[in-house]
């Protein structure tokens, strides 16, 4: 299955949840936020949210700022 993550194509084995995507890419979940097709997905929903082909996933992280 092909999705995009921050506009970069990613090939994933099906089925794949958001939680599995985070683990596969070894992303630090502390300070991480994810959206699928412009909808923010709560952390507690990551394990229950299965990605669909062509989903556009956006990943954001907390950084320093004023």
């Amino acid at each position: 299955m092909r999705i995009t993550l921050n506009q970069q194509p990613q090939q994933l084995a099906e089925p794949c949840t958001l939680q599995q995507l985070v683990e596969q890419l070894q992303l630090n979940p502390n300070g991480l936020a994810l959206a699928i097709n412009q909808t923010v997905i709560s952390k507690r929903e990551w394990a229950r949210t299965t990605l669909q082909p062509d989903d556009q996933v956006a990943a954001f992280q907390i950084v320093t700022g004023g």
Partner: protein
Amino acid sequence: MLNLAGVQLESPLLLGTGKFASAAQLMAAVTASGTELVTLAMKRLDLQHQSDDILTPLQQLGVRLLPNTSGAKTASEAIFAAELAREALGTHWLKLEIHPDPRYLLPDPIETLQAAHELVKRGFVVLPYCPADPVLCKRLEEAGCAAVMPLGAPIGSNQGLQTLAMLEIIIEQATVPVIIDAGLGAPSHACQALELGASAVLVNTAIASAADPVAMATGFRLACQAGVHARRSGLAATSSQAHASSPLTHFLETL
């Protein structure tokens, strides 16, 4: 003491975390400043170059975290950023900032008010960065914002309280805390803001870009203490004429 949405903070100094040379320097400045509330931003994750984890050491210091919506140019972008920040940090506190113009980074009052209404409805504790406009500040307060954050001068400009006359009106009228944000370039500016009756100040560039940021953080902490003490003590009245502070007895006339 600063009361934000029912939370008491001893320190009137809020610290922005941008522009520090390293995470270690930031942590040392946070400690030296005595702040209990620091701001953070959101950005799109760079999968090739993941940033250092600055969150864990801040969490270990025990300071409260206040995410901002910097980068948002419209109310709808700010609302999206707010939802992301809430998930990323697990806090519903938010520094709302919408500044579409990169040259002066001045906050858009119309988009800010619109976003504030919606974010309050969605359960956020909204702290809006806003122009030093007394009418707008009242409107933001009526929208349910937990504080207002009028600017002293453009972000990062270090010009001090250029908006002084308007800040005085805002402080006089406000029933929520007034936090002077942006443009404070020296400890004396922070002191002046607190002497005026502001509840708190938010400082970033003046500390992070100082030759010695940790020492400057101490300078701001002390200046804030001075400002709070001065405000509580009741400043003496000013006058255009002299009023002698030594006895004007005529003891020299007989010489």
